[in-house]
């Protein structure tokens, strides 16, 4: 398919089909809307105690979903203006950075478009926590401070969409995306036609270890349960990352797993793996790993690739049982104050030259076509281009799995009640 075909094919897509059809919902929104007004009326009208008593409910997150359903997204986008600035919440070390901490690609963007970027790379340390922070504001229909944020595919992503917290992205405003997005991210399993998101990076979750601190070689998740690694292993606290290990070890495909699979996985994690685990980490694992807090850790491919220059003894493993592949996505909240500016950035990012500059610093997997070539030819960075961590061979890629897929709250509650105790320990 040529670039033009893609553009035409998708440009014709009518966003209005989204109205009401996007996802099934347990209850209608009318009730929740009333809650909204009840709360507001109470604050305005009554004294403190009275308001607490009358507002004896916390409004659900589905409130704004109806409003989102009713939105004509073409009109919504047509009504937005460029404001010359936007703010961007991202994970740490997830954009190019010079030695002093400046971000050259953002500076170039500002130079070219006149749009100033407030970039917060301390904002997201863990998907669930970040979602927990922004959800109340989004539920109240208030801005969250960021016009663009990066969210991993998973339950929180689903929640953001289901609750109508994020804007559908007008394809007319992101021609570069349609032209340059890699086939694999054009319509990912968790977001049909990338309606609400544009992938920022993809990556793999495997095992990393300091070979100088570990006897023998590690090739599988099962290896982590060896008695000799007691208190040497770090795992992710994120349930999606953790659960998939237990499932893969048991030979289950995470995305199609069932409750009983989860229970078996949790059982393996608690009884086999946990005794060797020193700590469950979020984003902070890398710092701890670098300072040799632990010898072995569950790790994200790009992080390890990036530190191997300084830590040549660190090895990364794509475990035999299989490993996770994930996608971090740029999303725009419906309450954003500068959505068009953020959209401009998304479109800008989907240029091979821009994405390559960024990619050559963060070393994950870019969603933009031609990046590998560009880095090989223009930037000339063989370390990245030839790395199996960034570009695993096809036989390894065959073992890559998507996360457990959860579509509704009840399932999610079951899921968390099974895996949370593993993380929080006993």
């Amino acid at each position, binding site marked *: 398919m040529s670039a033009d075909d893609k553009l035409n094919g998708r440009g014709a897509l009518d966003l209005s089909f989204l109205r009401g059809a996007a996802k099934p919902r347990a209850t209608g929104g009318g009730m929740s809307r009333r809650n909204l007004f009840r709360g507001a009326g109470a604050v305005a009208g009554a004294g403190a105690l009275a308001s607490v008593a009358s507002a004896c409910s916390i409004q659900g997150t589905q409130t704004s979903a109806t409003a989102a359903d009713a939105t004509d997204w073409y009109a919504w986008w047509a009504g937005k203006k460029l404001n010359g600035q936007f703010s961007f919440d991202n994970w740490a070390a997830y954009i190019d950075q010079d030695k002093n901490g400046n971000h050259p690609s953002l500076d170039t963007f500002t130079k070219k478009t006149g749009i100033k970027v407030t970039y917060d790379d301390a904002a997201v340390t863990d998907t669930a926590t970040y979602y927990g922070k922004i959800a109340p504001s989004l539920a109240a229909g*208030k801005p969250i401070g960021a016009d663009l944020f990066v969210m991993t595919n998973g339950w929180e992503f689903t929640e953001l969409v289901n609750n109508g917290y994020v804007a559908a992205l007008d394809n007319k405003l992101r021609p570069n995306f349609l032209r340059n997005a890699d086939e694999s991210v054009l319509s990912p399993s968790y977001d049909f036609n990338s309606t609400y998101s544009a992938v920022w990076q993809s990556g793999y979750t495997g095992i990393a270890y300091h070979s100088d601190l570990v006897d023998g070689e590690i090739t599988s998740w099962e290896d982590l349960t060896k008695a000799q690694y007691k208190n040497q292993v770090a795992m992710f606290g994120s349930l999606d990352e953790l659960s998939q290990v237990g499932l893969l070890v048991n030979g289950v495909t995470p995305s199609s797993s069932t409750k009983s699979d989860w229970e078996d996985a949790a059982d393996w994690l608690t009884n086999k793996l946990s005794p060797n685990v020193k700590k469950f980490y979020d984003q902070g694992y890398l710092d701890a790993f670098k300072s040799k807090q632990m010898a072995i850790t569950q790790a994200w491919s790009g992080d390890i690739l990036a530190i191997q220059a300084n830590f040549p003894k660190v090895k990364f493993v794509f475990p035999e049982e299989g490993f996770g592949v994930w996608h971090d996505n740029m999303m725009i909240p419906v309450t954003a104050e500068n959505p068009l500016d953020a959209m401009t950035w998304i479109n800008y990012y989907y240029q091979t030259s821009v994405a390559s500059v960024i990619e050559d610093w963060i070393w994950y997997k870019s969603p933009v076509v031609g990046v590998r070539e560009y880095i090989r030819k223009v930037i000339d960075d063989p370390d990245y281009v030839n790395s199996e961590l960034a570009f695993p061979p096809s036989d390894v890629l065959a073992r890559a799995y998507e996360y457990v897929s959860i579509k509704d709250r009840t399932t999610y509650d079951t899921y968390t009640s099974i895996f949370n105790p593993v993380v929080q320990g006993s």
Partner: protein
Amino acid sequence: MSDQTLTRRPTFGPGPLHPDDIPEVKPRRKLGLPLFYCGIVTFLLIPIVAMIVYSFNVPTRNAITPVWQGFTLDAYLNLFAVQGIAEAFFTSVAIAAASGLVSVLIGLPMALALSRYRFRGKGVLNSMIFLDISAPSIVVGSSALAFFLSLNFTMGWTTILIVHVAFNIAYVVTTLRARLSGMGQNLEQAAGDLGASPLVGFFTVTLPLVAPGIVAAFLLAFAMSIDDYVITSFVNGSTETFPLYAYGFTKKGMAPQVLCFGTIVFVVAVCLAFLNGLLNRRRP
């Protein structure tokens, strides 16, 4: 003491004891506490020294490493390269100043009421203040969040300020009440006796006399507010204060610039404290 030394002495051995025996015991007794003190202060200063040293260490990917990699001033020269650091810092300073000011404005009259009057409900007020002090930050923060959630409030600058004032009031009132009680009621009565209305009396007598207490209370509130992480983390919404900002870096590798800010604040504070000490010493 002397009795015991006398009775115990002969057991040391036969014959008259040489007077030098006594100072032999003394220095050991005297050295123990100073050494202990020095040990503790060293323990307290270690992380501060680390902060200063690491702020000059060459970072990797703009995160500090505990291994010395060479001296550099880069982080200081690019203090604002890490986005948001200045905003977070000034937000913290502004909230701390505002919450200190509001707590003093609210707390001073309350401290006056509590130290100068007997009235029904005084006990309730005292219990509220005690409760405020004895509530853990995590409870204060999470309760405030629960409250704001049920009122459908948006978290941000305002909610941080509101909650900071709420926990600062107790400390301000306690500090000022102690000061006012120490000062006694006589002077204000004397002012009234000499024809000053309560308001005039307050401004001509009470205020000048409790001014040092007000400054102390303000500084206490300022310090509590500017360094608060736990409470703020519940009610900050999208507003970022310096402790929250720094906490973000504990997850992803500390940027040297954060340590530079820490070092600069530390040096300025130490200088101010030193200056204040000098001024106080000069004054009679």
